[in-house]
């Protein structure tokens, strides 16, 4: 617990530092316009990270999120092109996302396959289906009032609507994860699944639920993505699953399950996003950006451990838990 706390603090401080540095360093950083964009640009990743956090806490992972996003984008395009009303398309597409999640969940819970393997498979499958649905077409001309909804800020703020929505959802997830029985169950499952099961926790049902949630959120993110860019393509969001995972890791969630806080993850998402934005504004080239991202990831996790290593190891856990 102590370490996780310390971790949140570290990431939080880094975030503040970046922000301050940006505000002082480059005039165009702290402008409403830029921040609004930078935040909006994080929208989808942030949304998906919420669901991913819950999964990872329960010691599972969903690599297919980016593909679900792509599939939902392709569907939106195809259906819109087919003349269906956007009001019907959106729920329909989100439902499809839930279905994708359900498939992941069933394969994991019913067959007991490792989620990494399953979702690598569905990563290919769903992306493939996206191409099947939309092929090489790119659909545009979405209704302005909706595209606007995906881009514009909540009046009087520099917070785009999707981000506002994210904040709401984040609060809900935070409560669920850290204050409800469901959350307790997630941590127990992640840390010692068998014991959780022996305590009468419906392990499989809960995991299934998580995957469905993850699929749903990803699909919704796909809708936002499509409207924000006003363009539906099969290859939308290609490869952002790694960005999401990077954010979750940076947020201090342990992929062995049972450890992590949502606050950390949100800080992680913001940190990565704002840092990249800041670097771009200062004409730091892409390659340097990815180097910085990578180093940030490693160093932020390395530092607390080095500190605890350098301090004379009193805790007897050294030998028993010391292995990578």
């Amino acid at each position, binding site marked *: 617990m102590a370490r996780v706390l310390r971790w949140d603090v570290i990431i939080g401080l880094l975030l503040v530092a970046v922000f301050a540095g940006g505000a002082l360093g480059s005039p165009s950083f702290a402008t409403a316009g830029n921040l609004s964009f930078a935040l909006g640009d994080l929208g989808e990743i942030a949304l998906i990270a919420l669901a991913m956090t819950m999964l990872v806490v329960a010691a599972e992972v969903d*690599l297919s999120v980016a593909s679900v996003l792509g599939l939902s984008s392709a569907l939106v395009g195809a259906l819109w092109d087919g003349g269906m009303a956007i009001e019907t398309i959106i729920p329909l597409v989100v439902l499809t996302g839930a279905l994708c999640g359900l498939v992941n969940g069933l*394969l994991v819970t019913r*067959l*007991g*396959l*490792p989620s*990494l*393997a*399953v979702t*690598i*498979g*569905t*990563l*290919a*499958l*769903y*992306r*493939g*289906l996206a*191409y*099947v649905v939309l*092929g*090489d077409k790119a659909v545009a001309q979405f209704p302005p009032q909706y595209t606007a909804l995906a881009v514009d800020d909540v009046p009087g703020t520099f917070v785009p609507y999707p981000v506002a929505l994210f904040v709401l959802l984040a609060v809900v997830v935070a409560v669920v994860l850290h204050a409800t029985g469901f959350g307790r169950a997630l941590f127990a499952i992640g840390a010692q699944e068998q014991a959780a099961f022996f305590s009468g926790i419906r392990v499989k049902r809960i995991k299934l639920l998580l995957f469905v949630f993850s699929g749903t959120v990803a699909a919704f993110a796909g809708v936002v993505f499509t409207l924000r860019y006003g363009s539906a393509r099969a290859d939308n969001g290609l*490869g952002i699953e*790694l960005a999401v*995972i*990077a954010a979750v*890791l940076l947020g201090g969630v*342990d*992929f*062995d399950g049972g450890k992590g806080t949502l606050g950390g993850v949100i800080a992680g998402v913001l940190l990565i996003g704002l840092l990249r934005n800041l670097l771009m504004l200062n004409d730091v*080239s*892409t*390659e*340097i*950006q*990815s*180097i*910085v*991202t*990578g*180093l*940030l*990831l*490693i160093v932020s*996790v*390395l530092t607390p*451990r*080095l500190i605890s*290593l350098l301090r004379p190891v009193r805790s007897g856990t050294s*030998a*028993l*838990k*010391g*292995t*990578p």
Partner: protein
Amino acid sequence: MTATTTRPEPAARDRSARNLVDLVFRARELSLVLALAALVGGTAAVNPNFLSGQGVEDILLNTAILALLAVGQSMVVITRNLDLSVGSVVGLVAFVVGDALASGWGVVPGVVLGIAIGAACGLLNGLLVSFCRVPALVVTLGTLYVFQGVCHYVAAGRQINAVNLPPALLSLGNGAVLGVPYLPLITVVIMFAIGYYLRAYPSGREFYAIGSSPEAARLAGVPVRRRVLAAYLVSGCLAGLAGVLWLARFGTVVADSANGWELLVISAVVVGGVAITGGVGSVYGAALGALLLTVIGGALVVLRVNPFWQQAITGALLLIAISVDRVLALRVARLLRRRSRHG
């Protein structure tokens, strides 16, 4: 004081249990081979070209590099770790070595350079994971970005063209001895070497021990950190070698060769029956997995499947592969239980 009695005589159940267990372990490689046979047979039936000399050669060449990476990866996975950075390493090595050769390096120094770079990358990953105890996922995802960045930085939008490369290297990529191309040959030799080491040597078994239970390994006096480091080192070296072979095979490279391959490699390993949770599996399985993935890809094209369907079908087949294998394992496990006790 406690009761004094004798245990039931369980010899019989143990024997039948053993055979079944063996069956489960063999099953993976077996089912892979069967799946392959079916796939190749079916495809060849539709389009004989698939088994033409050229066709087979292409498949072998395409598999070689992926299989090489899968072998390295499985060594890491067996120790209950992961190496996401392989794709970036291949890209980096391919370009840097290409650059060196283009500027007049000899082939041999070039190869050495490539492997050395790979080794350095592996060493970095290994040190961070084993000695600094940073989770493998964090480290290798981080280095994935870092190595990629470095590669782009070095490349700066340039491209290495085959013309500027020594013919010796290119012939290594496309030449053959007695009709067998070099690349698959190299891969197979390495695969058997590592496979044999892991099975027949005490230190080799320790990789499995670590993956099976790190704490127990530590208490048993296994040098956990050294082994994990070694696993990453091997994975790195093989990624380096793969980078050189990539260069030899494709001749033209820009900064992003093999980017995104990390997941491809891992799917190969998983399909090959190496448990992502460590301790189980073999490099042969991993290599077969790579072969299977490549053949699927090739077959779909040869069968004139609409390109938009190809990816979807690949994904579906991948899922079927692991599901079938799993169901099989569960079945055998139940059989084991029913036979195991009380006659």
